[in-house]
């Protein structure tokens, strides 16, 4: 499928998801669904760097929380429409990604991962000490009951925005996979020296990947203050975001955008279900068990079962 028909298909599917959620006439579906959608974006974003170029980022919570804190800061200065604020969060986290990429250009493997974790800790420390956005005491954000226009229920509005972001993330991730950029990412992941020798500007591509990945995480985090209404550093920078976000592509498969999507839907839905039926304390246990299980039965993720991945789908692509 070409880019535009695919985009339309995504919109149709998204519309279907929204209508189905409305049809349940259960407000909780939107509340829980928002979290699932947020994780789809995070997982796809993580995969742009981790899956395509092979650089494992542990600092997810940093990018995500910086996006959320951008909203808190913007709210205090000039209240803007949320979609605009999301773009701002994306810009800030994208810049953070660029900076992180720049500082860690020479780091590979586990050293890169540790540096990203350190980045998240530094960002958290910074926020704890920045009183303007609430410091260690945290910040309250008032969630309106309804949107100013159309009078839509605000949680539904957040759900809808996140759904739109999912569509954007899917379309972008798929476009990357099918482009020269995606080929360059794959070359970097497989062998950086050989990639350079084949003309791939590895440093530049890595920066593109860290910036794009960070930007999507920031956009995913931007609506968070309105969703939780109270944001403090320990919850915004919770390690659970990193653990879940990394587990999802690993479960679903890292070779294509479908992997993080499937993994996120599966894991996040299960967690939402368990939160209601048992307790949220079991969530991390679920992640652990699923990770171990999938590493044993599906080392290339769920999409690996269907032969999606290695030796891609490029024949007849005609570029």
């Amino acid at each position, binding site marked *: 499928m070409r880019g535009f028909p695919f985009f339309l298909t995504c919109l149709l599917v998204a519309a279907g998801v929204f209508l189905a959620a409305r049809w349940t006439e259960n407000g909780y579906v939107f509340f829980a669904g928002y979290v699932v959608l947020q994780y789809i974006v995070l997982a796809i974003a993580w995969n742009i760097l981790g899956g395509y170029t092979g650089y494992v980022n542990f600092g997810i919570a940093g990018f995500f929380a910086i996006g959320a804190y951008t909203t808190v800061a913007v709210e205090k200065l000039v209240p803007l429409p949320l979609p605009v604020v999301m773009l701002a969060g994306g810009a800030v986290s994208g810049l953070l990604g660029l900076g992180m990429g720049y500082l860690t250009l020479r780091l590979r493997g586990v050293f890169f991962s540790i540096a990203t974790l350190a980045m998240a800790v530094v960002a958290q420390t910074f926020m704890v000490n920045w009183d303007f956005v609430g410091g260690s005491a945290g910040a309250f954000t008032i969630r309106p009951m309804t949107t100013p226009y159309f009078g839509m229920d605000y949680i539904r509005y957040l759900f809808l925005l996140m759904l739109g972001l999912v569509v954007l993330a899917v379309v972008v991730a798929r476009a990357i996979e099918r482009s020269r950029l995606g080929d360059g990412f*794959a070359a970097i992941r497989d*062998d950086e*020296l050989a990639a350079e020798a084949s003309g791939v500007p590895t440093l530049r591509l890595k920066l593109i990947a860290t910036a794009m990945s960070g930007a999507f995480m920031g956009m995913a985090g931007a609506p968070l203050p309105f969703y939780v209404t109270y944001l403090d550093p320990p919850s915004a920078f919770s390690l659970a975001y990193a653990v879940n976000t990394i587990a999802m592509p690993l479960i679903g498969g890292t070779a294509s955008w479908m992997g993080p999507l499937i993994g996120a839907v599966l894991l996040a839905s299960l967690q939402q279900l368990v939160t209601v039926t048992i307790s949220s304390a079991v969530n991390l246990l679920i992640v652990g068990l699923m990770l171990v299980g999938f590493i044993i039965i599906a080392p290339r993720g769920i999409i690996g079962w269907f032969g999606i991945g290695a030796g891609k789908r490029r024949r007849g692509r005609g570029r």
Partner: protein
Amino acid sequence: MSGALLDVAGLGKRFGGFVALEAIDLAVAAGERVGLIGPNGSGKSTLVNCISGTLRNETGQVRFAGKVMDGMAAHRRTRLGLARSFQLPRPFHSLTVTENLLIPIEYVVHQRGEGRVDLIARCAELLEMVGLAGRGDDLPAGLTQVEMRKLELARAMAAEPRLLIADEAMAGLSHQEVDDILTLLVRLNDQGVTIIMIEHIMRAVMQFSQRLVVLVAGRKIADGVPEEVIRNPEVERAYLGE
């Protein structure tokens, strides 16, 4: 030397305290076929790495097509027309054989703004040339070590270089296959590609080279007409031992 396509002057490279290359001078004219030989560990691959930008030399200078290469990233050198194959094949293992060749085509050939070719046909042609016809959809893991060498060579050729450095592309090949690759390299050379061939198979080196360069323990000890170079007592000593 002016007018040389590749001009290496006083190049030195150390690994910690170990001097891998010392004061190497080497000029290669456009269109030349040069053989580079030397015992194991004499620094041949290290020299290739310094020329192609995979490693940084501490001293000396590399000029290619009149441009100073020092500090230039490897991918830019490749784009300028300086391609190399790796001695130990380094295929992109998650990509098919054809996709391996697409990388340099997309990032080097297209980058030069030359007319876009039918990618699949071009890849098939390259695979045919190196004797990998029909293997395009395989993953590198499905290739033998020898086939990976051929892929390595095809990938370097895919960049359509002005200077091709083949680092032991023929190790392990059968007599017939060596002849096939030799024919291929000579044909490339006829089309104007300058070639430096690193090889332990003396038959191939002697047949191929218009000029022979010998490295021993990081130093260039001979450079000249192949027949004379191999009769050089110093070269004989290096190869046959004291």
